[in-house]
């Protein structure tokens, strides 16, 4: 596992160099969703006895952490197809698990940064939630899962265009259907069964429960852990396969 740190450090150096742009970019979607769904459509709506904004913010946390963790795939693609840096890693004595660990941690860091932006926006909107240990554990597991998925898929795609396609097919539907903007229990049972299979759904559930100050159920954490570890293992295999 030795050697993950230079991979992580490289991503952080690049992030630091464009930090303001990144933070601005991370803020755009949550602000738009907050205005459109929270302040516009949802101002008079209550869900499970709470205002729609209180329902929406944990959903935005889940969605933003997913999107930003998954965005590590774009950085990997730029390194692989545009700069050719990936070959520098391949030619060095770096193990595949170390590479995946470095990139996954970079994805998690980006996700945490984006969650801090959402929390700040929520604070400025007057929404007060609990950002306790369970909340951050769910955020980290969610980011770990989607960063691992991103690394694996980044090894499969053959171009930047493929990457955009994957984002459209994997991330965009999940962002809307994973319990982010509306409670799943309002949907027909058969739709609920399908939507519960999406990895973002347990993340939204765990993040929302902990943000409400409740003790969250353990099952979503178990799903996120098992799925995250499986995708992490798969990413290692795909990095090995990407050698040729």
């Amino acid at each position, binding site marked *: 596992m030795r050697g993950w740190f230079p991979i992580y450090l490289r991503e952080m150096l690049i992030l630091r160099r*464009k930090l303001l742009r990144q933070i601005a970019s991370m803020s755009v979607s949550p602000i738009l969703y907050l205005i459109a769904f929270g302040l516009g459509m949802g101002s008079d709506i209550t869900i499970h006895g709470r205002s729609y904004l209180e329902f929406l913010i944990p959903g935005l946390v889940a969605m933003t952490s997913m999107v930003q963790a998954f965005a590590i795939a774009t950085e990997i693609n730029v390194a692989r197809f545009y*700069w*050719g*840096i990936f070959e*520098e890693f391949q*030619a*060095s*004595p770096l*193990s595949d698990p170390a590479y995946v660990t470095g990139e996954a941690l970079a994805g998690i860091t980006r996700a945490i940064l984006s969650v801090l932006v959402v929390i700040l926006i929520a604070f400025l909107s007057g929404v007060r939630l609990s950002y306790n240990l369970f909340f951050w554990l769910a955020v980290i597991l969610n980011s770990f899962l989607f960063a691992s998925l991103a690394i694996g898929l980044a090894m499969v795609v053959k171009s930047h265009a493929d990457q955009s396609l994957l984002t459209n097919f994997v991330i965009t539907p999940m962002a809307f259907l994973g319990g982010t903007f509306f409670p799943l229990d309002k949907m027909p049972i058969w739709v609920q069964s399908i939507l519960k299979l999406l990895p973002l759904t347990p993340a939204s559930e765990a993040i929302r429960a902990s943000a409400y100050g409740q003790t969250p159920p353990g099952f979503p954490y178990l799903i996120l852990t098992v799925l995250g570890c499986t995708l992490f293992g798969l990413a290692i295999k795909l990095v090995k396969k990407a*050698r040729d």
Partner: protein
Amino acid sequence: MIEIVNLVKRYKTVKALNGVSFRVENGEMFAYLGPNGSGKTTTIRILTGLTKPTAGDAYLNGCHFERDSLKAKRQCGLVPQVINLDMELTVRENLDLHGRLFQMTSEERRARTDALLEYVELDDQCDRLVNHLSGGMKRRVMVARALLHAPEILFLDEPTVGLDPTIRRRIWSLLKKIQQAGTTIFLTTHYIEEAEFLADRVAFLDFGNIVQLDTPDNLKARIGEWALDKMVDGHMHTQYFPSREGAQAFIDQQQGSFSLRRVNLEDAFLTLTGKKVTADGSVAQVSTDHEPTAALLATGPDGP
């Protein structure tokens, strides 16, 4: 030392390497010469762990390139054909990350970075973003990066492609200096004069096969010492002679104007492979005009 045994690489229907075997001795500068698509880059990619071979073995200072890949990689430095520096990072950051990948301590990284940037004459550029450097500077940063962990073997894939002649000569001097420091250098190029100037031994590669392997002097001697060029119907007609006197005697019997010159490695490549490598690395079939004279052929393949 590099030892390659029967290396084969197939890409679906294309055979990029066709059972290549050879050895590069410690401290040797070895050039792999051939047109685009001849298998030069594939060989380097296999040896540096970027591509899996279909069959065959390779040893880098005794370490098997696949079974003991991490140890083998520690002994190698690679300067790929395409510039693959982090453009958004500074020169120093690029080198520092490389040193970390090779598990160097912070003191080692700092000392080697300073020394190497001075070595490649870029010590005043260390805090500039790589994106702001010229092409020649980027190439030199890549050489410095490849040398940072003090590799015993340095692989260079077309190190001077696209550079102007002044920068090219500067890189050549640098490579000579690196070799003098004891590093084994494996170089691919389609610039024949580069191989002739730099290499102790040259392999001519064609369609994944080594067609000739020897010192530049021996390869040239196989076709003769002197070349006689004559334009006939708009085509260059070249004949080779073992001695200047022989060439002069031939000129005396002929009419028209000739150009007499010493044989170079390009002549050897043209004659021994029947092909010409153009400036962009593509290949052109040459006519049978480029052949040793009957008298020279009679002396056998090793020349006069």
